[in-house]
């Protein structure tokens, strides 16, 4: 592994080692660039992961204080946990479930397609599906996505059997075990899925793609990666010309360190990426870095989610096996005749008993709730993930009074459900229940959203600098050597789980950074 001097201003500093940052680091190292990858969390491995929900939550989740506000249920149910993301090497790719779906053509043109969604701050992406297709193909090959590259689908578990039978009985046509970045057979020196049932807690078999044991070690092998873990970036620094010059971070001993850089790439997941730009305000940039549009932190999206669980007369044991290898895609297609715009995917999901008790009915207690939990073995579950509407008022802002360990303002995450989100969720709840009713559910349970794992849009890409924070390469409109490299770039959310698109954008951005560097443009 490389170790660069703090004063070496020829390095690329990447902040965050998840789907965006971890991938970008490897891509840049493979192209011969020098990379300092700074990660706030510690390094774990499949050996240190534990199949234990509470232990893993404590080990992996980002638990620094945050507040949630707005009309979304999260503000009431989890006021200090608006998002369920990770603080560990590999970021949220350690926790993600593996669903790897391409955005659809019309979803890149949300403003054109959904012009009827009043009050939404819609915008078309400055790129199209055609621009992205070669990069989606590269990402699918890199990650080993099932049902691409001749990789077979995963075998369906019990939870999928229930979904499949219910879905086909109500007339859904496209139902299968999904496109998953989880090995259905050994590939890329990683084993095949053992159906452990703990995808969210870090995959102990390594079958699920995570930058932790794919991109990052591959980058280390080049000899060009300097990984600094347990290091929290406090501020991005700039010179009087407005070019960024490096970052200030606190290392694991609390020492403040300044690392010089030629370029800085921000990939801290949408909440922290926006917060870092806002916390980097200076006399030259009083509203935060790259914020001449005023859009930093705005248009926060988290998908219109919810879950439907159902209880049957006979056992299901939903927790056995791959958590999200099951999908119904019929409702994701363009169809504006349902009383809302945008589509949604229905994907299998399961929770172990400890988290089922915590999440099935937040704040739940009493006889009726206990009666539900006692039927846990006979339960099946699905997650709804649908396109939500960007709004300027849905925003990550700096808390006016509360500070973190280093004295910096903590983030407040404000979200009001758009009427379109509410209409979609209510419709999706009914469709999910219909799937389970078709195979004899005794009871169906509508479960409100969990803390957000899909966080998007706080530094969105736009054609015009006045509409967003970065251009179609993720390069900020205001500062040529500052890049956004995570889901913050998303102009709109689409209905699909975001990771595949984040990885594809990172591969694409690496090409751009390498060619612009070679031309001395950055």
């Amino acid at each position, binding site marked *: 592994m490389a170790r660069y001097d703090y004063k070496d201003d020829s390095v690329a500093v990447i902040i965050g080692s998840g789907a965006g940052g971890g991938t970008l680091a490897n891509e840049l190292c493979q192209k011969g660039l020098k990379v300092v990858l700074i990660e706030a969390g510690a390094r774990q491995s499949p050996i240190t992961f534990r199949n234990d929900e509470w232990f893993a939550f404590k080990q992996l989740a980002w638990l620094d204080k945050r507040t949630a506000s707005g009309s979304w249920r999260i503000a009431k149910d989890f006021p*200090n946990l608006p998002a369920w993301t990770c603080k560990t090497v590999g970021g949220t790719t350690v926790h993600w479930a593996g669903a790897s779906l391409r955005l659809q053509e019309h979803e890149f043109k949300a403003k054109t397609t959904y012009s009827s969604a009043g009050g939404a701050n819609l915008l078309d992406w400055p790129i199209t599906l055609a621009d992205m297709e070669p990069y989606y193909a590269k990402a699918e090959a890199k990650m080993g996505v099932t049902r691409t590259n001749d990789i077979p689908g995963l075998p369906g578990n019990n939870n999928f*059997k229930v979904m499949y039978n219910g879905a086909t009985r109500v007339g859904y046509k496209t139902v299968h075990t999904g496109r998953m970045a989880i090995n259905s057979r050994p590939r890329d020196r990683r084993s095949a899925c053992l159906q452990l049932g703990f995808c969210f807690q870090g995959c102990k078999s390594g079958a699920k793609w995570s930058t932790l044991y794919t991109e990052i070690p591959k980058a280390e092998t080049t000899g060009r990666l300097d990984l600094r873990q347990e290091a929290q970036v406090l501020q991005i620094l700039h010179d009087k010309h407005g070019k960024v010059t490096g970052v200030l971070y606190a290392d694991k001993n609390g020492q403040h360190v300044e690392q010089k850089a030629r370029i800085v790439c921000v990939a801290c997941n949408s909440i922290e990426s926006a917060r870092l730009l806002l916390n980097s305000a200076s006399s030259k940039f009083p509203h935060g870095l790259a914020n001449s549009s005023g859009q930093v932190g705005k248009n926060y999206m988290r998908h219109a989610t919810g879950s439907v669980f159902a209880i049957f007369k006979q056992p299901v044991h939903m927790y056995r096996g791959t958590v999200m290898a099951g999908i119904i895609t019929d409702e994701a297609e363009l169809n504006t005749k349902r009383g809302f715009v945008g589509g949604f995917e229905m994907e299998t999901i399961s929770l172990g008993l400890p988290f089922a008790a915590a999440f099935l009915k937040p704040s739940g207690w009493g006889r009726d709730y206990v009666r539900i939990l006692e039927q846990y073995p006979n339960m099946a579950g699905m997650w709804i993930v649908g396109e939500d509407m960007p709004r300027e008022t849905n925003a990550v802002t700096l808390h006016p009074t509360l500070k973190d360990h280093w004295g910096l303002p903590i983030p407040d995450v404000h979200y009001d459900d758009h009427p379109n989100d509410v209409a979609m969720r209510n419709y999706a709840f009914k469709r999910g229940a219909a799937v389970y009713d078709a195979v004899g559910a005794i009871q169906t349970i509508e479960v409100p959203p969990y803390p957000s794992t899909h966080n998007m849009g706080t530094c969105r890409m736009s054609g015009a600098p006045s509409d967003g924070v970065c251009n179609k390469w993720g390069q900020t409109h205001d500062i040529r050597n500052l890049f956004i490299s995570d889901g913050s770039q998303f102009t709109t959310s689409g209905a699909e789980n975001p990771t595949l698109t984040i990885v594809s954008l990172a591969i694409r951005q690496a090409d751009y950074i390498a060619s612009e560097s070679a031309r001395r443009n950055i």
Partner: protein
Amino acid sequence: MKRREFLQKGALMVAGAAAFASGAAAVGAADQWSGKLKALDARQAETLLKMARQLFPHERLDDSYYLNVVHDLDDEAATTPATAKLIATGVANLDHQMSARFVSLPPDDQVIALKKIQDTPFFEKVRGTELVSLYNNHNVWEIIGYQGASYRFGGYLHHGFDDLDWLPNPPESASPKPT
């Protein structure tokens, strides 16, 4: 990882607890608690035990599981003065909801009393602590029928991940056989 940290995290995550500033400890004297409590008094412990039972009333679970909750709260109260105050004030408040003390109310009235205080930080502290204490207990898993970790026996791949037999198997195009 200590169990207590789980409990704190659970309570914190579910609620984000805040503490009441003042309160008066009630005096109780049931012999069964003597020598077993660090910070709580017998009356508080007895109230918490009944409350824990009412919050998640599993008929198949004996009192020992609910006693764990009381001791978890007692442990925290012993090291965290704010928690001790929260419990003291909360128990006193709970006792004032109906015409008699909480522990002497019939079960249905206990539920009514709890509904009246369900938005308080005290209630959320007890509920959040109990949620983790009960449902992270492996004996409870066995009683309810959750098998938990499968890594030690090689995953559910050969241990029932697809053993559901009351519905037809999906076609291989939707669900390929394991390779």
